[in-house]
C-alpha cells in the first residue's frame, strides 16, 4: 500500500521535474515547504528548517489556522526537518525549542493532518507540514501533614478530586502520621485553582494551611517552565493540608 503510494508520488514528482525542465534551465525540481499551524493563541513560536526561521504569530482572526511557506524552496533529494527553533523532538528528554508563550506546539498527530515534519523532498508530491498548539498545563500538588484517619478527600473545585490515605508503618500497619503527598492533576495556564477539604478523615479535622498565591491553597496558575523543556515544569506543589485529631468526647 505504502510502496505503491510512494511510487505514484515519485512518478508525479518525475513528471513535475520534466515539466520544470522545459524552461531550459536543467536544474533540479524545487519544492516549497508549506506549513499549517492550528490553535496559535500567543506569539513566540519560531519554526525552522534548512537554515530558515519563520516566526509564527497568532492569526488576525481568532481561531483561524496560520498558513505559510518557508522563504526558499528546497531541491529534490534535500532533507527538511521542520522544528521549533533549537528543538529536538527525538531527543530524551524532548527539547521543545522556541515555543509560543503559554503554549506548546508539536507536529499534528490527528488524521489526516499527521504528515511527517521531516522527510526528503520528492518523497511526496508536495511538502506539507502541520503543527498544532496546546495551552500549557502544570501540576497542582502538595503535602498532607499529620494524617492518621482514612477517608480524606481533597478537591480543586469541580475540576479534580483525590483520596489521600495515611502513611502506615510497614511492620505494625498502624498509621504513622507522616507527611504524604497528593496530586490534583494539572491546571491550565491562567486558570484559577482552589484546594478544599471535600471529606474529612475519620476522627480528624483537616484544613488547608498554606500554599498557592494567597497562602490558603488558591491561586492562578502561571508558567513554571524555566527552560524550553517542559519536563522541568513544577507547577504549584506547595499546598499544605494539616490534620489534627478531633477532641475525644
Amino acid at each position, binding site marked *: *500500500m505504502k510502496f505503491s503510494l510512494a511510487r505514484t508520488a515519485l512518478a508525479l514528482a518525475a513528471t513535475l521535474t520534466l515539466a520544470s525542465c522545459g524552461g531550459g534551465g536543467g536544474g533540479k525540481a524545487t519544492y516549497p515547504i508549506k506549513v499549517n499551524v492550528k490553535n496559535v493563541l500567543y506569539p513566540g513560536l519560531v519554526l525552522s528548517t534548512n537554515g530558515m526561521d519563520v516566526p509564527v504569530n497568532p492569526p488576525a482572526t481568532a481561531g483561524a489556522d496560520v498558513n505559510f511557506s518557508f522563504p526558499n524552496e528546497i531541491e529534490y533529494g534535500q532533507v527538511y526537518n521542520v522544528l521549533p527553533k533549537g528543538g529536538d523532538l527525538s531527543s530524551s528528554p524532548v527539547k521543545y525549542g522556541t515555543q509560543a508563550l503559554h503554549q506548546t506546539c508539536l507536529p499534528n498527530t490527528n488524521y489526516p493532518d499527521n504528515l511527517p515534519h521531516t522527510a526528503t523532498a520528492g518523497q511526496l508530491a508536495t511538502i506539507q507540514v502541520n503543527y498544532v498548539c496546546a495551552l500549557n498545563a502544570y501540576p497542582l500538588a502538595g503535602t498532607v501533614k499529620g494524617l492518621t484517619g482514612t477517608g480524606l*478527600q481533597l*478537591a*480543586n*473545585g*469541580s*475540576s*479534580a*478530586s483525590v483520596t489521600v490515605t495515611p502513611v502506615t508503618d510497614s511492620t505494625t500497619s498502624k498509621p504513622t502520621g507522616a507527611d504524604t503527598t497528593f496530586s490534583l492533576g494539572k*491546571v*491550565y495556564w491562567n*486558570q*484559577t*485553582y*482552589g*484546594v*478544599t*477539604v*471535600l*471529606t*474529612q478523615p475519620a476522627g480528624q479535622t483537616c*484544613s*488547608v494551611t498554606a500554599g498557592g*498565591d*494567597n497562602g*490558603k*491553597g*488558591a*491561586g*492562578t496558575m502561571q508558567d513554571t517552565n524555566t527552560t524550553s523543556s517542559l519536563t522541568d515544569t513544577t507547577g504549584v506543589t506547595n499546598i499544605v493540608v494539616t490534620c489534627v485529631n478531633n477532641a475525644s468526647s
Partner: protein
Amino acid sequence: MKSSILRAGVVALACALGLSACGGGSGDLNLTGYVYNVTKDGLVLQNNGGDDTAVTSPYTAFQFGNRLSTDDSFNITVKSVPSNVASVSDCVVANGKAHANYYTIGQISVTCKIRQRALKVNVNNLTTSGLVIVNGADRHDVPAGTTAVQMAGVNEDGPYGVTVLTQPTGQTCTVSGGGNGNGSGNMGATEDTTVTVTCA
C-alpha cells in the same frame, strides 16, 4: 490484509454451507470501545438490540460478551444511562454502526453528558471591592454590595469547593455552607446547592 480477505472468504463459505457463527457470537473480533464522562454504574449498551453490556468501574471502556466475525454488522445503542445523566439521548455513540473489521471495531466510543446542577454563592456584608471567589477553574470577581453569585454548573454527584482567592480591601471573608460546612461537598442528586460567603 491477506489474512482478513482469507477470513472473510472462509466466513462466507461457512455461511454458504449453512454452518453456524454467521450471526455473530463466536467470531474472533471483540466489539469494544472507549467511554467518556461516565462516573457511576447504570450505562447499559446493546448491540443489534441484544447482548446487554453494563459499563462498570473504572468506566473507561466497554466490551461486548459476544465476539464478531469479519463483515458481521453491528449497531451499538444505549439501553439505559446512569442516574446522573438526564436521558438516553445524552449518551451518544460514535461510529457505532458498521460492518466488523479490524478498522471499524477500533473507532467506537460512547460519550455521556452529566446533568448539571446549579451552584449559587450568597454573599453577606460585602462593602468593599476586590473579592475574588473560585470553584477550581471557575473564577468570579465580586463587586461591593453583591448579594449572590451564580457559579458555573456542577456535575451531579461531582465535587465542588468554593474558596476565596483574593480578599476584598479591608475586609476578610470566610466560606461556609455546602455539603461539609466549609464550602465544599458533592453535588446532590436532587437539589441545587448554596454556599455562603460572609465578610467582616
